[in-house]
């Protein structure tokens, strides 16, 4: 499994390492006495769609700012395309291979969309020749702004501004695209389009680093994620690997007493006849998710194919679950568990400790 804690990434990886596009080493930023990012070790590999997740104020934008040379780290280092960003020359060479939108897209309001892209080309060191102009026209078509290319930026809607930002990021055929909250301000259709766009970038082999707090969005597009909270890296790894730890068997009960009894039965069985039972815990029904009659849910950490055995174990003791389901883990659940601790029992939970089987060694 590839899930990592906040340890240096290289130390926990096994197998042939793919080319690393971006790496940070103990990256730290303090604003005065306030730590914004602490000892951050990230690794983004070529071809990744890498999500940087965290609640507001977790240090995502500060991290992106340090990667792009906008914010000076208090400590630690950034490596882009294998080179440390130690001076202007290295930074300039690296940034010319990156397309980025940090915070809100920022353009000259009185210039047209096309002129603004010409400015981006100039900033990136591209000549303003026919090749660049043709490329500008091409990306304007790609983001659906060709018909509005001659309109001033201040006439654009929020969604159009976001699209122009994406066009700017694509302009230089970058190897790495950094997108900070790319769907901010977009309507649902626009969000879907941006997700499709990111998918297409990944298919072309372009590495994408995006920050977001929209977890379902990240789950749909990202292959790997890092989760930050208050500037500290909580987890990093492939989305599938992170979520694997959350998959389990869900038992629904109509009464809390039944739930407690089931937990006791399984706890006993784990010690004797069912060593494959790794643990149980009470969980709250999630908003919008399946809710059993009565609303009492017990999550059993066991292989999915053991569901009939669990049912038999409980039945032998006269405990019957109202329903047994496979628990589909979401990044949202994982994120909440990491950033806010384990979900707490609902107010209606039975008095006393909920039986919990400690994970087996």
């Amino acid at each position, binding site marked *: 499994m590839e899930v990592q804690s906040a340890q240096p990434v290289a130390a926990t990886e096994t197998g042939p390492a793919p080319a690393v596009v971006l790496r940070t080493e103990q990256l730290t930023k303090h604003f005065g006495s306030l730590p914004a990012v602490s000892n951050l070790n990230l690794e983004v590999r070529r071809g990744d769609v890498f999500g940087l997740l965290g609640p507001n104020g977790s240090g995502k934008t500060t991290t992106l700012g340090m990667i792009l040379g906008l914010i000076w780290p208090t400590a630690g280092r950034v490596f882009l395309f294998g080179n440390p960003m130690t001076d202007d020359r290295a930074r*300039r060479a690296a*940034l010319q291979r990156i397309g*980025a939108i940090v915070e809100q897209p920022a353009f000259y309001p*009185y210039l047209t969309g096309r002129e603004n892209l010409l400015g981006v080309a100039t900033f990136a*060191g591209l000549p303003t020749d026919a*090749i660049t102009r043709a490329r500008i026209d091409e990306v304007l078509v*790609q983001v659906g702004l060709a018909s509005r290319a001659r309109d001033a930026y201040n006439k654009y809607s929020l969604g159009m501004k976001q699209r122009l930002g994406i066009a700017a990021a694509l302009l230089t*055929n970058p190897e790495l695209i950094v997108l900070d909250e790319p769907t901010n301000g977009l309507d649902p259709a626009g969000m879907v389009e941006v997700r499709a766009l990111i998918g*297409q970038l990944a298919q072309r082999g372009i590495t994408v680093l995006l920050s977001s707090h929209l977890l379902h969005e990240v789950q749909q597009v990202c292959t790997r994620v890092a989760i930050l909270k208050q500037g500290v890296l909580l987890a990093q790894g492939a989305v599938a690997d992170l979520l694997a730890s959350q998959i389990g068997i869900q038992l629904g009960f109509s009464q809390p007493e039944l739930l407690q009894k089931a937990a006791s039965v399984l706890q006993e069985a784990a010690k004797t006849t069912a060593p494959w039972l790794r643990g149980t815990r009470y969980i709250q029904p999630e908003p919008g998710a399946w809710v059993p009659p009565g609303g009492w849910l017990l999550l059993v950490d066991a292989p999915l194919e053991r569901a009939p055995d669990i049912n038999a174990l409980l039945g032998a003791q006269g405990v019957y679950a109202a329903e047994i389901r496979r628990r589909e883990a979401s990044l949202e659940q994982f994120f909440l568990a990491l950033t806010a601790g384990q979900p707490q029992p609902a107010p209606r939970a039975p008095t006393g400790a909920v039986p919990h089987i400690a994970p087996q060694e």
Partner: protein
Amino acid sequence: MTPGITQPNTAAPVASGDWLAHTWRLVSWNLRLARRRLMGKILLSMLVVGFLGLVGILVLGYEFTSATTTSSTTFCATPAPASSDQPPPSGSQPCTTTSTTTAASQGQQEIAQLLTFPDALMLAGSYLTFMGLILICVLAGAQVGNEYGNGTHRLALSRGASRAQLLVAQVIAFVILALAASLGLLILGTLVGVSLGPLLGGNIPAIPADGWVEMLGFWLVLAFKLFAYALIALFLATAGRSTAAGIAGSLGYFLFETVALPIIISIALALSGLQSGAAHIQDVFIGPNLNAVLAGVSGSPLDLGGRNAGGPFDTIAPFQGLVVSILYCLAFIGLSYWMMRSRDVTH
């Protein structure tokens, strides 16, 4: 919206690794911004229209002087002779019309000469050192401050331009703008001087060789003065990370130097005596130093800037003024770079 991200159909543009070429493109971009900005167009129009308006006022003054001369003949105590060839009657009062006409024609001649080349250059220069300075402070403050206000400073840095390149590009763009604005206005002054002035009776003198050198120096020092004030606006806009700081700060400083400083020095002189050295207060300010350079460069033979460029208190030698002015410019650039370099770029 998105037809799809495909491999680029066009040949991929290639970024330049050459610092100078990249910086020069940024200079061109800054000039483009100045040209495309509505404020740039308005300021250019104000500069040109304002100068033409000044010329118009002078022409009106010329005409008004002429009209006053004509009407003043009615106040002549003694009837004027029918012909100027005839001597006035003996014993009669001298006619006041004669002296009025003389004064009026002298005034007309002065106006005509002021509107004639090369004195028209002096007129353009004087206008430029007041109105031009105000306008370039506004332009420079807006140009730099808007980069922070719009967030485009962040965009530029995140795409590969370095802080040093951005600053150098802005500084060079201001040099070019200052040279272009001063040259443009001097050309306008020349056009007025070779067309309107002679029409009003002004004479274009023969220009000696060192007169052309003086004109060249006059142009360069005027441009230097505009540039120096643009740097003040750049520095303040960078420090305040806003347009308001750049414009208000530089204009405030300009008004202080133009209005308050002479008053302060005059009061100091009145209180402490002419020999007290209080006039040297101005030596530490950039404006009087630039004026001293202007006076030194354009004092002869055409005397384009020498008559009043040095200001009311002549305490600064031209070379000293040049050194101090250059030091000021270097300080503004250095401090701006230090601020850009040391600060994080956040929104």
